[in-house]
């Protein structure tokens, strides 16, 4: 099937198999390998991307379902500087080790902070609880998101 969509601000038109997942389309057809495949059954969150502004599991959505949509990946939000402060905080807190979950974590954290700028540590843990990280034990990730939330709140005040 032919699909047309916007990926990270760029108009894209491709022929895809109806069975292809969105994340496989992004990774293999568009070579945007920042979105990762961890479980392919919607549990781990490594494939998290934004579709029309909402978080989506790239393994649970078909590429054809994204026809006409605005898709944003880690490459997009990193490129525009949207998550620059989060990235800095993650680096500072060593909130990533192998880095495989990190793109999904950043997008999920960004989504939380957009909805709840003053999120508490508990709310952060709740919001990230659909993103599996095997390396860090989550403590540093929660700290990085919390310090970013604080800094953003301060900057707005």
């Amino acid at each position, binding site marked *: 099937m032919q699909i047309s969509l916007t990926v990270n601000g760029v108009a894209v038109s491709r022929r895809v198999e109806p069975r292809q997942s969105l994340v496989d389309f992004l990774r293999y057809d568009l070579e945007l*390998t920042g979105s*990762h495949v961890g*479980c392919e059954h919607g549990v781990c969150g490594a494939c998290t991307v934004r579709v029309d502004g909402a978080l989506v599991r790239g393994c649970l959505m078909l590429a054809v379902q994204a026809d006409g949509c605005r898709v944003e990946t880690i490459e997009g939000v990193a490129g525009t500087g949207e998550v620059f402060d989060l990235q800095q905080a993650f680096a500072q807190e060593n909130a990533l080790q*192998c*880095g*495989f979950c990190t793109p999904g974590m950043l997008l999920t954290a960004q989504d939380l902070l957009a909805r709840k700028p003053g999120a508490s540590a508990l709310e952060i843990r709740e919001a990230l609880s659909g993103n*599996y990280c*095997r*390396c860090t034990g989550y403590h540093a990730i929660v700290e990085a998101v919390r310090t970013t939330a604080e800094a953003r709140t301060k900057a707005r005040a």
Partner: protein
Amino acid sequence: MSRIEKGRSYIGESVVRPQTARLLAGRGVFTDDVALPRMLHVAFVRSPHAHARIASIDSAEARAVAGVAAVVTGEEMTSVCSGWVGTLAHFQGMKSATQRPLAVGKASWQGEPVAAVVAESRAIAEDGASRVRVGWEPLPSVTDPETALDASTPVIHPELGDNLAFKLELSSGDAEAAFKNADVVLTETFTMGRHTGVTLEARAILADFDPSERRLTVYHSFQAPNMMQDILARHLNLPEQDVRVICKDVGGSFGIKVHIYPDEMATCALSVMLGRPVKFTADRLESFVSDIHAREHRVKAELAVKRDGTILGMRVDDLTGIGPYSVYPRTSAVEGNQTIRLAPGVYRFRDYAASLRVVFQNKTPMCQYRAVGHPIAFAVMEAMVDRAARELGLDPVEVRRKNYVTAEMYPHTSQTGYFFERLSHEEVLHKLLEMSDYRALCAERDALRKRGVHRGLGLCAFIELTTPGPAFYGVGGARISSQDGCTIKLEPSGKLTCMTGVTEQGQGTDTMIAQVVASAVGVAVEDVRVLTGDTMVSPYGGGTWASRGAGIGGEAALQTGKTIRGNILKVAAAILQCEPEDLDIRLGKIVDLMTGEVRLDLAELGRVAYFRPDTLPKDFQSELTVTRHYVPRHQGFAFTNGIQLSHVEVDVATGFVRLLKHWCVEDCGRIINPRLVDEQMRGAIVQGIGAALYEHLVYDQQGQLLTGTMMDYLVPMAAEMPEIMVGHVETPTAYAEGGFKGAGEAGTAGAPGAVLNAVNDALAPLGARVTSQPITPELVLRALGAL
């Protein structure tokens, strides 16, 4: 270390890892991200049975699928890739059967690969795999370790005679006498469930064989590239120098990615057979049935104690099931071996007797996973210590203090022959009690009990085996390097490029190495670029496992740094016409040793050495690329120690365990980067918590895995995990100049025991206790008699 202490040192500084920038931007390159021209993809036909004869394989229909390039069976692969046997000579009497990349004749576990379908895409390969018709003749399966050795149980590999892979009896002192003299004898049976690593990036390998030069290049998500290079060369019959293994970004490993897997060997063999690049990336469902599994122990423990809490002796009997094959080349006997050898090591009593049986069964092969044997050893030991304290009405802290190997006893050799240069049990305990305000938590617990809130506190003291020397694998015949090299090159610009044999999977190996090198040479840490994981360019080494990165790779980096520093100073002296001894290197500048006055920039030195050596004395040759190696030889292992405390609340109505907080005080010797050590501890603790409370590979009696998805197999997620506080005591090793030991596994070693003890502390007033892991709500309710 004198040099490091004199100049600008990064040792002990929480330097931020430079490579996180790449990973944070989505620019990491994991194995599945690599694509090569004319690349094919492989999907495997895996056995749906735990044990079954392969009567026939009909691949005609699969071959007919458009886009399928080849369908290959085990028999067709035998001439390309030879089989292997996972035994080590120093495990006397150990046996295992020949394993092959694809099963020949019969399959021995559900998930064993039996045929490979290679196609233009993974999806097409899977289409093909679903059309391969295998004529299965199911055989009775062996699942329960308890009956694996019974005469009525079928023998999985008849050529071996029985289902016993390995057995071991250890004894020290006189356990009989200890039990005779005991005031109290405590007996307990522990059942520890199977779990696995669940690396978020599944195993992945891309093999690229060039038939014109007969060279094989392999991109591999792996921890030990030189080990893989050696094994590929020998089993595919290729010259070792023509096999190159490259480990780019690795998405978690934890001991999962350090073993030889049939599907990965098959992928390389397929590339040789087809003369094209072939990629295999495991999907999550096949990961659960093909990644090595871990643990599965039944441990019977008996403790002989005096009324005052003095431990007199201990007996341990460990039975562990390892699947149908001992995993190559490290074997599946190390887990049990370490369990019974480590268990008593924190304490001073001498009378100890232990037995181990390692048995075959028709489940996924079991092998070394983070903290090999330790979590079982210390859960058992520390649960026995807590039980003794409870039964005798003593304080668990005091019982530990009374029995520790104490400061004045070092150097000390354990009941089972482990050598401890110097450990710090009393210090870490003292620090832990202060950090956690333990006594206040006890008081709070006691007060809350009166209100029907059931909180518990659990301690777990542990030792950790790190930095292994050649006695670990090499003497047993496994070609796994215990030495590691480091190469440092001064670039003409005055910056350093460093290559190391230890590898990076997120620990921060490259940052740690850069800190050591920068400190040893005298440059800014930003001016050191570290490369790991490419057998064509890295010096030969073992890679990263058994917490060896800092202790071995760090020491090799220190020695290399010191050597190139000396060489740089010789060049500087030749340029400046003075003596090297009068000069120093500080933050990338050659300075006068006494005054600190800047004499020469390293960039200028590089320019002269590389482009204008004609200006130097005729008989002077600069040597600005240096390689040095290190292998620990003065002790078998550099043991570390620590203690953890878990604080939990048990809901006695539902059986749910809520983790309130977790503490760990560890002693990994001289710390290179405190933040990286903290984060190793935290991540490892959460893996231990997963084992204690959630993760369980449940099999039915036929050997079918019932928890083979992430919906059924629970991993720790952010919402359930506690805050984890980490403290440090530093007891450097004197056997290596850097004083570094390992830190990667200590968290996992102690966490399950701490959680188990905390739950039992909460349940104690109700007269209940649990002795199995994972501690599920059902288990708690059964212990309480509510089910």
